[in-house]
């Protein structure tokens, strides 16, 4: 099974590497490389762009939580830097009965950080807990296709699905595959999210909200010799400029994101290291296909043609994003670089004429009230204004935005999706009739059947074809206006070694030393 997913590391990394190899500038002799192996010990100070919401994988829906999870919990399967599924706590697996039965074989000799043995019973305990409606777990929908779970022995889990589901393994590399110690879950009950216990390389010590969260080395980690760091301290810094400042001043050693305007100066700063890779996520507009005027497909397509994605990219992302035309980013194996539509005011006006409103129309655009989103909404407003489409911008806070988007109480909104490794996770719930993420209330039987076939097929090349066909229809029907694929850009100080950037943006510290 070969999958081609280029991991693009930018000039920044090459430049940094070259500078390091050349011994850097004479003034900063301390940055000269000492080519020795990993060193055990030390504290890594990490800047993150917002505070964690909960540290329980079963109760988490915030993206930021995953930064902590990836180091506290070892997922059952792991992702490679090119987003391929690899064995981890599951050493191997078999898929039988036409893709409906998954037999998962668990690693022996693994213990949770509190000494509880990691085994099939623990996995089942977590999944049964998440599937119980009374617990209101955001993971429940991930396990909706599960019809039964069983554990023939302590290291084997058999999952029977109601229908074939090709993305199931991919879920096990995410929060559904992050297993908590059943002992700790029972001990702490509803406050387990403040006392997480996993099997990962680092264990939880302390979390003072809005201030810091501390992890320490797990001395009993199953992978002998790992991790290297003694301690990790996460500091939430909500102002992007301040997060970058904290790295520059040395208050933190690594940051999870870099403001777009600072990326080019970062590349020329020899006292910092950085890397950039296409992310899995994208920014898009959702158009409610059940209310006028966006009920009319020609009006939606007019918007699609009238937006200059290159200009938006230059203006808002300083050229570091990639224009988007589908839900599958360049980091995904389902990405098709040839799928695009032209930017053309003429074509937009033709569509407006077809829709019966040649002079344009007006609609309300909802978005969160962060400066970046408001800027992007203003840019869209001015782009669409050129063809006579009047946009009324409505910035609201994120909870209101989500409530209105999910409730269908909107005309158009500007949202984003952080993206998941399997294309099914980026399309099925978004595009199929009645799908749980289908905020535009889009319905197309052809798309429904293509995406269903794609999740039931086992061959990646066949799946890719289905995704392509579906994406082409979705692009032209425009329930979503895809705008940009957002990159992952991370930066660190030269004394941080062994760090690797991933398209999912999660900072894995198992192999990092200082």
């Amino acid at each position, binding site marked *: 099974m070969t999958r081609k997913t280029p991991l693009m590391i930018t000039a920044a990394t090459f430049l940094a590497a070259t500078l390091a190899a050349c011994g850097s500038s004479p003034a900063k002799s301390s940055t000269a490389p000492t080519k020795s192996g990993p060193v055990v010990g030390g504290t890594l100070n990490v800047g993150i762009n917002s*505070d964690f*919401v*909960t540290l329980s994988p079963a*109760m988490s*829906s*915030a993206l930021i939580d995953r930064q902590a999870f990836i180091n506290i919990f070892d997922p059952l399967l792991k992702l490679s830097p090119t987003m391929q599924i690899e064995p981890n706590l599951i050493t191997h697996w078999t898929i039988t009965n036409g893709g409906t039965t998954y037999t998962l074989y668990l690693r022996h000799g693994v213990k949770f950080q509190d000494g509880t043995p990691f085994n099939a019973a623990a996995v089942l305990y977590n999944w049964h807990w998440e599937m119980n*409606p*009374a617990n*209101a777990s*955001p993971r*429940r*929908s991930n396990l909706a296709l599960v019809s039964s779970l069983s554990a023939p022995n302590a290291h084997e889990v058999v999952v029977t699905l109601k229908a074939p589901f090709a993305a199931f393994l991919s879920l096990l590399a995410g929060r559904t595959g992050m297993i908590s110690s059943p002992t700790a879950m029972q001990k702490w009950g*509803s*406050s387990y*999210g*403040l006392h997480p216990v996993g099997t990962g390389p680092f264990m939880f010590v302390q979390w*003072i*909200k*809005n*201030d810091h969260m501390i992890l320490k080395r797990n001395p009993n980690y199953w992978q002998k010799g790992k991790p290297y760091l003694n301690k990790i301290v996460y*500091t*939430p*810094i*909500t*102002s992007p*400029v*301040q997060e970058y*400042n*904290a790295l*520059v*001043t040395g*208050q933190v050693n690594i940051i999870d994101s870099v403001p777009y305007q600072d990326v080019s100066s970062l590349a020329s700063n020899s006292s910092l290291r950085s890397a950039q890779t296409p992310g899995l996520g994208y920014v898009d507009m959702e158009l409610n296909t059940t209310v006028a005027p966006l009920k009319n497909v020609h009006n939606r397509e007019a918007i699609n043609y009238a937006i200059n994605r290159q200009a938006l990219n230059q203006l808002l992302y300083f050229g570091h994003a990639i224009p988007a035309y589908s839900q599958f980013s360049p980091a995904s194996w389902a990405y098709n670089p040839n799928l695009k539509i032209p930017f053309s005011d003429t074509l937009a006006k033709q569509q407006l004429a077809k829709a019966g409103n040649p002079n344009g129309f007006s609609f309300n655009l909802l978005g969160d009230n962060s400066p970046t989103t408001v800027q992007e909404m203003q840019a869209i407003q001015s782009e669409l204004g050129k063809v006579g489409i009047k946009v009324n911008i409505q910035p*609201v*806070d*994120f*909870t*209101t935005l*989500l*409530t*209105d988007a*999910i409730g269908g109480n909107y005309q158009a909104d500007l949202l984003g*999706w952080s993206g998941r490794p399997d294309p099914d996770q980026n399309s099925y719930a978004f595009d199929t009739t009645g799908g*749980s*993420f289908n905020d535009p209330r889009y319905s197309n039987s052809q798309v429904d059947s293509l995406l269903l076939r794609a999740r039931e097929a086992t061959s990646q090349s066949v799946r890719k074809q289905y995704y392509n066909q579906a994406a082409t229809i979705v692009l032209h029907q425009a329930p979503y206006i895809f705008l940009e694929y957002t990159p992952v850009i991370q930066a660190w100080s030269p004394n941080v070694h062994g760090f690797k950037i991933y398209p999912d943006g999660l900072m894995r510290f198992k192999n990092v030393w200082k």
Partner: protein
Amino acid sequence: MVLFVLRRLVNLIPVAFLVLIVTFSLIHVAPGNPAYTILGEQASPTAVRLLDQKMGLNHPLVSQFGTYVASVLHGNLGSSLLDGQSVTSLIITRLPVTLELSVLAVALSLLIALPTGILAAYRPNTWIDSVSRLLALLGAAIPNFWLALLLVYVFAVTLRWAPSLGWVPLNVSVLGNLGHLVLPTIVLALPLVAITSRVLRGELLEVMHRIYIQVARAKGVKEWGVVMHHGVRNALIPVVTVIGLQVGGLLGGVVITESIFSLPGMGQLVVNAIFNRDYPVLQGSVLFMALVVLLANLAVDLIYAWVDPRIRYN
């Protein structure tokens, strides 16, 4: 005096109740539901309904309010909808940060405002007055988030004199604690300087023309004594009033300053509670902050009596 304080304290109760009603209504009028914060994009109608039930948000608003008030009267501010932490303990852990920051900001503002105000009034329309006026104008006009980023750029990023953000508790390191508070304190103090020094100047200018000042001078009191004992003391009442009124504004400034400097204080607690629709945390903190403002006003009234012995509360 004691009776006066007691009466004022009793008067706090209806005001506090009003604050409760307003906060409760405002947050419930705002669209959005904590269930969406917890469930995220995965929120299905069924999941939201179940979570609402679990959190007691499915009951009518009036009955929710009744339950809440009853528990507040029992001294229980409830617990966070997100992680179950008690609101009282959340406030207690956040309070020292905000309290220290506010006290330092007021102290710094007085340290600058008193001399500049007095000098400006004593030498009106000279360069000293102009400098003090310019300072006041800047303090009043510069938005604090901009000032914060500017100070960080100059003193933290470029000169490396102070940390750019973060917090060290006093019991861990006194110097570290003060070091981390230097920039936020300046940001918070500057608007206070502006208004305090201007009010003091205006009032003192008027007082210095009073007959009793001339009498004092005629009696041969030294100029320092004339200005400080006869002038400033009589000009202080409006200054005290203004500082008291500023407590409310200070708490507003704290919200922004704490966010920019990543300080784990009350301001951040409130902001996050709003974004997450964490009703109990928001109601509890706003109630607490309202009480602080009310008590600050009571303190101002008591200070009047101390500043001006002619004022007596009976």
